[in-house]
């Protein structure tokens, strides 16, 4: 037991002298927070729009107003021909083009159906979808406010409401997920390189002839990184809450305990990588190899529900998939431990298996 603390203590000294790793530990999480908090904004607003208004009537101006007032569209330019309108899309100057025919107002007054065209740049599906949905809502609202259709009593009074993130802020969704991403990336990386460093430096050779047991060595090496992982998690949660004002609805204690479980899984991955790698470079390559698919398949950016079945099955093997549901559930929805039990047990199982497997592999390699 005392040997474990001796190792943990000397590991702390070594970490405190390793300026590069220390910088990585502090800068990387903060950088990610800034990028996802300020830089990447998946909220689609103010799509640059060109307008080709051939009617130039009171009604056509009202329609254009309805588009701009929605905040989804910003009129950048008015053009005088279809050719110019198409060119603006081709050149990427406009995300959408609103085309109003010359007989727009006249047709409406004579109670005839008239056409309005919205051309949308579909290259990037996210803003295109937003433009599509928003335009439909804008036009139907326009028809009602202008009393173009009779006010009727609908058989179904349909009232959709957004819960948990009513303003659909992407920071609410991304930043809690970032805890999972950063831990899954940093913790295995530093754990694996720290263990491999003993191999590279020949220190293992000296330790082998001491009475220390493999499990003592492993636990001693891991303990400092548990603290570092906790430090990273706390710093992300604090910044997220204070700087980006993401509300935390659930219990901090539950969040802390379940983050610990996830941390153990991450440590286990690092440990396992260290048993394969011969040098620090290999170790970080192995960690990267597993981190990359986790980012894409865990639901960090793309929802797992919309994945093809085979890919979704793979996502169930990724620890981050479960942890993302846990952090988002606790922070955004205020879910409790029992609500998350379906996510907790796979993580616990993974933690147990990966640690058991790595310690056995490590002991074998040491002998």
């Amino acid at each position, binding site marked *: 037991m*005392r*040997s474990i603390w*001796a*190792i943990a*203590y*000397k590991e702390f*000294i*070594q970490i405190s*002298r*390793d300026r590069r790793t220390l910088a990585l530990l502090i800068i990387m999480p903060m950088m990610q927070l800034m990028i996802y908090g300020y830089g990447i904004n998946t909220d689609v607003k103010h799509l640059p729009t060109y307008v080709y208004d051939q009617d130039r009537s009171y009604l056509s101006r009202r329609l254009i107003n309805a588009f701009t007032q929605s905040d989804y569209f910003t009129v950048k330019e008015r053009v005088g021909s279809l050719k110019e309108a198409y060119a603006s899309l081709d050149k990427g100057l406009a995300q959408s083009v609103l085309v109003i025919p010359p007989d727009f107002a006249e047709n409406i007054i004579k109670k005839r159906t008239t056409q309005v065209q919205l051309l949308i740049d579909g290259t990037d599906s996210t803003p295109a979808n937003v433009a599509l949905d928003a335009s439909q809502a804008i036009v139907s609202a326009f028809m009602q406010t202008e009393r173009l259709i009779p006010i009727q009593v609908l058989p179904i009074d349909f009232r959709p409401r957004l819960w948990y993130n009513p303003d659909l802020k992407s920071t609410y969704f991304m930043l809690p997920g970032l805890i999972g991403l950063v831990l899954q990336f940093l913790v295995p990386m530093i754990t694996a390189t720290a263990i491999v460093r003993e191999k590279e*430096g*020949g*220190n*293992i*050779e*000296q*330790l*082998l*002839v*001491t*009475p*220390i047991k493999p499990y003592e060595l492993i636990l001693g090496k891991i303990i400092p990184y548990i603290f570092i992982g906790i430090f990273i998690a706390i710093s992300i949660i604090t910044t997220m809450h204070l700087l980006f004002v993401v509300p935390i609805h659930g219990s901090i204690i539950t969040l802390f305990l379940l983050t610990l479980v996830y941390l153990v899984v991450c440590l286990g991955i690092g440990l396992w990588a260290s048993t394969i790698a011969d040098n620090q470079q290999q170790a970080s390559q192995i960690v990267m190899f597993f981190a990359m698919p986790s980012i894409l398949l865990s639901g960090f950016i793309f929802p797992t529900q919309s994945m093809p079945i085979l890919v979704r099955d793979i996502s169930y093997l990724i620890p981050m998939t479960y942890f993302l549901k846990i952090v988002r559930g606790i922070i955004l929805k205020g879910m409790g431990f029992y609500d998350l039990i379906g996510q907790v047990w796979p993580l616990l199982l993974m933690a147990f298996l990966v640690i058991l497997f790595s310690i056995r592999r490590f002991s074998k390699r040491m*002998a």
Partner: protein
Amino acid sequence: MPDIAISADKLTKRFGKFTAVDEISFEIPYGSIFGFLGANGAGKSTTIRMLCGILAPTSGTGKVGGFDVQAQPEQIKTVIGYVSQRFSLYSDLNVIENLTFYGQIYGLYGINLQNRIQEVLSLTGLERFRQRLAGELSGGWKQKLAIANAILHRPKIIFLDEPTAGLDPLSRRGIWELLYQLAEEGVSLFVTTHYMEEAERCNTIAFISDGKLLKIGQPAALRQELHDKILEVTCQPLMKASRLFLKVEGVRGVTVYGTTINLNVTDEKIVEARVIETARKEGITITAIKPIAASLEDVFSDLDSGRRSDA
């Protein structure tokens, strides 16, 4: 406590079909320096690893400090010290931190540990480098730190794998003075080395080649055992002479030194006459010719060439 610190009885290690160590046997008493000599890949490190309890022998037995290498490797680890060939302490920890860490691993704590660290620091002369990072010590001081580290827990047996490799002569002498001091305190030292003059400093030396123990004994006895006599010839031109002297009947080997040639000969009187005769005929100027005592290097090269001609 038994008088024998380390013993091996037909100790063997095979890796697949390759026999790294082949039935070697020896006994090393406490308080003596045992020099283990052999070329790279001869089986020195494998032997050390088996005796340290980190590699199980294929067959045969070994006892270190009264514990069996096969059955009690963990007990062995508590009674031995080990200095590896490659510096294997932590370069980014300072002298005190390294010693504190390893002391704790060996179960030393608190005031006991502090006192013991002070003792090994004054024994090795490392006191003035207390706060120096191990990686910033020179080669000789690094090795002294490794030795200080190995004796923290007062082991009665220490294994040193080429402790002086790559060091300057002064540092090497310093290391050996330290080793003598330890031996005087009753510690048994198992040392591998490449340097023949260091082998002379050992109480007992053993030659290992291709996993087999060729010779074991005291350095002086081994030198006397050498059948050949050595004839030292000072002459000019050196290289031409060495080629010609090799063809002289009764000359078994020629070694060229700076300004002299050593001839391994069967009978110095007869061969001396033949060599002088050859020199006269070929126009080689001999300024001096005299029989000298064999060195361990001569013993070693004789053993090695003997083995090669056997094979």
